[in-house]
């Protein structure tokens, strides 16, 4: 039996408590980080599995904390800085302000947006879309995840290239680099990039699964496009002559830009001819399929609007580099 009376209460803990109360009496709102520092705890190690329910983290700088497996039920993260925070397997039930939060783990990493967990119907109903988009089926994304706010840009790719993280230096077709989405990268190149980014940040970056991609593209909508059943040139880059800079078009409801058009985006999954069989219901990568092809989503500047539909699928050889294909990253929280 665990004893209730204080053999588990050595004096250093009481001393730390006294110190923290003194801090709080001198400063009405000491930061969580300052309190942690005063207690002699390590943000990167000591909060794994901790009970942190109902804490008010508004405006706090939480960068670098590891909250893996922690109980964060009801915590308020509004306007908190969360770059580099790990939420792996944390209980975020009722947490406020995390969804929609933006962060960048390191200076050269893509900006990420936290999207909510939830369920959606993947694919197209009978009589709509293409045959390979059926049968429509329910997918549940059980945990929030962080997704690139934009497709990976040339400047982000070039930073990785400059640091030796990737070996391929893709051409820009003479359109310019900077904030334009990187193109002429294969699925294998994209894997090299997320591998480098994971090593640099210590976090797990990857491509979106096909189901996660469609979930993020729809952002809660059930129409052909996240804008409705039609799309126009004020909403996406299509039927055009080249790509445009990321952020040129409005974000969808979850803060993600250019999910429709501009560049096709590589997903993690092998190509499956349709959704017959047993696609995962949890949004994970669907094993099997044609291992020589990988899924592309979203359509590009090169295509007509029907290719930009949320449910539209395409498959291409994983080693090919195309001037209308890029990618977007996801990060496990």
């Amino acid at each position, binding site marked *: *039996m*665990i*004893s*209730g009376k*204080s053999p*588990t*209460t*050595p004096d*250093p*803990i*009481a*001393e*730390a*408590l*006294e110190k*923290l*109360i*003194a801090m*709080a*009496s001198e400063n*009405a*709102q*000491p930061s*969580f980080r300052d*309190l*942690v520092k005063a*207690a*002699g*705890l390590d943000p990167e190690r*000591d*909060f*794994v*599995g*901790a*009970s*942190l*329910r*109902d*804490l*008010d983290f508004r405006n706090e700088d939480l960068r670098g904390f590891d909250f893996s497996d922690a*109980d964060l039920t009801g915590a308020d993260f509004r306007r908190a800085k969360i770059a580099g925070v790990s939420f792996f397997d944390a209980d975020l039930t009722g947490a406020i302000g995390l969804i929609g939060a933006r962060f960048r783990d390191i200076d050269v990493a893509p900006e990420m947006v936290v999207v909510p967990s939830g369920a959606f119907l993947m694919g197209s109903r009978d009589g709509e879309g293409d045959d390979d988009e059926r049968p429509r089926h329910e997918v549940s994304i059980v945990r929030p995840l962080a997704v690139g706010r934009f497709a990976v840009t040339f400047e982000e790719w070039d930073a990785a290239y400059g640091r030796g993280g990737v070996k391929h230096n893709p051409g820009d077709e003479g359109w310019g680099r900077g904030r334009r989405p990187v193109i002429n990268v294969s699925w294998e190149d994209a894997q090299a990039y997320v591998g480098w980014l994971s090593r640099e940040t210590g976090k797990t970056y990857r491509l979106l699964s096909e189901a996660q991609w469609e979930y993020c593209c729809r952002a809660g909508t059930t129409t052909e496009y996240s804008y409705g059943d039609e799309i126009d040139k004020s909403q996406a880059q299509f039927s055009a002559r080249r790509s445009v800079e990321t952020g040129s078009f409005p974000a969808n409801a979850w803060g993600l830009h250019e999910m429709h058009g501009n560049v096709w985006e590589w997903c993690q999954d092998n190509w499956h001819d349709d959704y017959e069989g047993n696609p995962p219901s949890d949004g994970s990568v669907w094993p099997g399929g044609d291992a020589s092809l990988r899924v592309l989503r979203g359509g590009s500047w090169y295509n007509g609007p029907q290719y930009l539909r949320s449910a539209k699928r395409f498959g291409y050889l994983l080693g090919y580099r195309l001037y209308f294909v890029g990618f977007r990253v996801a990060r496990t929280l």
Partner: protein
Amino acid sequence: MFAHLGFLERLYVQTKTDGAGIGSGARIEFSIRRAYLSIDSGRAGGLARNPDWAQFPTSGSVYYVIAKAAPHAITICINPQPGQTGLSDLPLPPAEHENFLSMPAIVGPDTDIGSIRAELTVSLCPEGLFIAGDDARRPSASSARKIAAIVSVLASKCDAAGHSGLIRRDIPVRERA
């Protein structure tokens, strides 16, 4: 194999006060957020799960798990009943014809009782920070919750046998008379 587990609903850390304004007399109370009972005979097959446990109405708060560090051990995860934040007395379902004892494991016929080890691992959940008297030293509600959470982590860390921040206790195992 029978087990008797009970948790006091409140543990606490308390600071001193001398009545002359030195020390706040603050007190942080904790409950047990989650517990793991692990019973290990040191070999595969020495112990088995109790097949009758599935019949008990524990609302899913008590269930078997496999511990990475001891995959052959019988390990039970114990969570609070729905609507409660902490564990209290007798969190395990009682065995048939017993009031206080539960039967989390079945001992194999060739198992040496002396080889069986039992361990309880718990994590703390802060329930609140309480300060008597002097209102001037009373932190805001938001700061009080943060302090309670941090001290909870500190208490776990100081008393932990491993690196996980969890509190561990060996449980005595005896042959029943």
